[in-house]
C-alpha cells in the first residue's frame, strides 16, 4: 500500500452514559484494507466504541467519518458497515440461506441472482449445501461463520466484529482465528475487531488499539506494542513484564546510564528512548530478554538471589530477588541455557540484558 486511504476517522469521540464516561477523547484513523483490533479489559468501552461506528450509539462529542463522509446524521441501516454481533444474533425463524440473504431484499435481485450470491457465500465460509439447515441445528463455529457470511454478502466497506470468537472453545478459536485472517485477506475488506484476548489481537491484527477505562492508551503494530509499550498498563496487558525503578545518572553520546534500584548496577540504554526524562524512572523489561548467569559476566550485571525455578518444558522460569530492595524479577530462559548446570535456589545469580531491552514507561 503506497498511499494510506483513511476508511474510518474518529475525531475526538467521547461518550457519556449519564455521568459515567464510557469513552474519552478517542481520536484515531483506521486505514482501508487494515485488520484493526480494539483490545481492552471488560468494561473498558470497546463495544461502545464499535457501536458508535455502527450507529447504534450516538457519540456525546466528536464525529465519525466513514470513507470520508460524516456519519452524524446517518442511521445504522444506511451506513456502509456491517457487524458480527457478540452472540451472532442469527435469526431463529430463518434457515441458513435466508439468514445469509437477509440483507439482499433491498437490492431487488432476481431469485437466481440471489441464490447465486448466497451459494457463493456458503462456499466462502466452507458450508456448501447448508442453506436449508435450520439455524438451531448449527454448531457454535458454524453459527459464527453464518454471521460472517450474512454481514459480508453486502460487501461493506468495513466489517465490525464484536468478540466474534468469544463464545468458542479454545481449539475452535485457534482454528477460526486462522480462518478469519485468511478470509480478511481474500475479501480485502477493512476489519475492526473487538477483543479482550491479547493473543488473539496480536495474532490477527495489522494494528491494535489498547483501551483502558474508556481511553485509548496506545495504537501500534503487535510487535510495536510488545517492544515499545508506552505505559505500565499497556506493558502489563500485553505479554508478561518485569517492572523496575531506576535513576538516570547521565548520558554519554547516544547512550544513557541508568542505575537500577535494588541491585545497584548501572546499565546502559539508548538515550533517545528516554525522551529527555531524568531523575527517577519507571522501567520495564521482558522476562525472555534477560539472561541468567551463575558467575558475574561483567561489571554491568545485576546481582540477585535465586528464589524459585519452574520448569515449563520448552522454557524455564526463574524468580530472582534483587539485592536488598527485595524486588523480584522473572527470567524466562530456553531450557538449553542450563547446559552448564542447574543453579541452586538460594544461590547468588547475575542478570544481564542487551542495551535495547530496557524500556522506559511514561506513567505508573
Amino acid at each position, binding site marked *: 500500500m503506497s498511499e494510506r486511504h483513511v476508511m474510518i476517522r474518529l475525531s475526538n469521540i467521547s461518550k457519556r452514559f449519564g455521568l459515567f464516561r464510557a469513552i474519552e477523547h478517542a481520536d484515531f484513523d483506521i486505514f482501508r484494507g487494515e485488520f484493526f483490533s480494539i483490545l481492552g479489559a471488560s468494561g473498558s468501552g470497546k463495544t461502545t466504541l464499535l457501536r458508535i461506528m*455502527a450507529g*447504534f450509539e450516538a457519540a456525546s462529542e466528536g464525529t465519525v467519518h466513514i470513507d470520508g463522509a460524516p456519519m452524524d446524521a446517518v*442511521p*445504522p*441501516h*444506511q451506513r456502509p*458497515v*456491517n*457487524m458480527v*454481533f*457478540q*452472540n451472532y*444474533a442469527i*435469526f*431463529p*425463524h430463518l434457515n441458513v440461506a435466508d439468514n445469509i440473504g*437477509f*440483507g439482499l*431484499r*433491498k437490492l431487488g435481485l432476481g431469485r437466481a441472482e440471489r441464490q447465486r450470491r448466497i451459494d457463493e457465500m456458503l462456499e466462502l465460509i466452507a458450508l456448501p449445501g447448508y442453506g436449508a439447515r435450520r*439455524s*438451531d441445528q448449527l454448531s457454535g463455529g458454524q453459527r459464527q461463520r453464518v454471521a460472517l457470511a*450474512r*454481514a459480508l454478502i*453486502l460487501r461493506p466497506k468495513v466489517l465490525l466484529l464484536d468478540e466474534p470468537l468469544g463464545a468458542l472453545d479454545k481449539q475452535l478459536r485457534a482454528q477460526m482465528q486462522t480462518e478469519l485472517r485468511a478470509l480478511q485477506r481474500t475479501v480485502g475488506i477493512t476489519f475492526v475487531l473487538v477483543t479482550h484476548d491479547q493473543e488473539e489481537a496480536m495474532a490477527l491484527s495489522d494494528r491494535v488499539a489498547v483501551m483502558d477505562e474508556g481511553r485509548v492508551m496506545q495504537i501500534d503494530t503487535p510487535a510495536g506494542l510488545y517492544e515499545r509499550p508506552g505505559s505500565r498498563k499497556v506493558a502489563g496487558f500485553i505479554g508478561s513484564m518485569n517492572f523496575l525503578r531506576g535513576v538516570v545518572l547521565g548520558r554519554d553520546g547516544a547512550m544513557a546510564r541508568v542505575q537500577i534500584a535494588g541491585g545497584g548496577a548501572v546499565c546502559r540504554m539508548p538515550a533517545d528512548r528516554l525522551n529527555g526524562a531524568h531523575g527517577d524512572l519507571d522501567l520495564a523489561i521482558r522476562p525472555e530478554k534477560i539472561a541468567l548467569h551463575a558467575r558475574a559476566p561483567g561489571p554491568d550485571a545485576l546481582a540477585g538471589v535465586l528464589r524459585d525455578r519452574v520448569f515449563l518444558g520448552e522454557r524455564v522460569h526463574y524468580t530472582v530477588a534483587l539485592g536488598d530492595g527485595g524486588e523480584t524479577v522473572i527470567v524466562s530462559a530456553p531450557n538449553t541455557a542450563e547446559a552448564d548446570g542447574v543453579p541452586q535456589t538460594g544461590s547468588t545469580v547475575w542478570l544481564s540484558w542487551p542495551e535495547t531491552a530496557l524500556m522506559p514507561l511514561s506513567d505508573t
Partner: protein
Amino acid sequence: MKPARRHEFHRPNRALQLYAVFFMVLLYGPILFIPLFSFSAGLYIRFPIESFTLDWYGRLIGERPVLRALENSLRVGVSVAVVSTCLGVFAAKALVRYRVPGKGPILGFILLPLVVPPIIFGVAMLLMVNALNIPLSLYTIAAGHIIICLPFSIAILMPRFEGYDAAMEEAAADLGENGWWVFWRVTVPIIMPGIVASLLLTFTVSFDEFVMAFFLGGTDLTLPLYIWGQLRIPRNFPVVLALGTLILLFSFALVFLGLRIGRRGAIKLVDRG
C-alpha cells in the same frame, strides 16, 4: 444407593394428591351440571334425570335472537382481540426494550384491571360515556373489553420480548432495514406464538365477559347478556343450558389452544439458545 434417596424425595405425596382432587371437584364440579342437564328432557334441575334429549340443542338452532347475539359477540370479540393484541405488542415492546422512567409503577397501573373488579370499571366507564354523550352500543362494549383484555395481552407478550436478544433487531437494522421492516421481518415472526396466544385468550375473555357488557351495552346484546335475559323465563332454561355448554366447550378449546401455542413457541426459543 444414591438414586434411592432421590427417588424418595420425589415420592408422590398422598395429602397433596387428595387436595388436588378435592380442588378440581370443587372448581369444575358445578360447571359439569350445565352440560349434564342440557341433555335432560325435564324443565327443572332435579335428580334423577328421567330421560335424555337433544331437543334443546335443536331449538337453539332455530332461535333468531341467539344467532344475532352470537354474531354480536363474535364481532366484538374479534375486534377486541385484534385491537388489544396490537396495543399489547407495542406496550410490551416498549416496556421490555426501552428504559421507560418509572417502569414498575406503569406496569402495575397497566395490569390493574386484572385485580380491580369489573363492576368498578363498568360503572366508571358508564359515567364517562354518559358525560361525553356517547350512545351505548357494541362499540362501547368493545371499548370496555379492550381495557380488560389489554393486561392479558401484555402479560402474554412481555415474556416473548424478554425471550430473545435485542441484538436480533439491531442485526436486521445493520443489514439495511429501517424500523418498519425490522418489525415485520424480525420482531413479528419471532413473537408470533405470543401474538396468536394473545389473540385467542383476549377473544375468549371478551366472548365470555358479562359485567362490562351489562353496563356498557345498548339494545344490541352479546351472548352473555342474552343468557342473562333468558334466565328469567323458566321455560327457556334448558335452552340456556345447551347454549352454555357450547360456549363452555368453545372457550376451553380456545384457551387450551392459546396456552399450547404460547408454550410450544417458548420451548422452541429456549432450545435455540
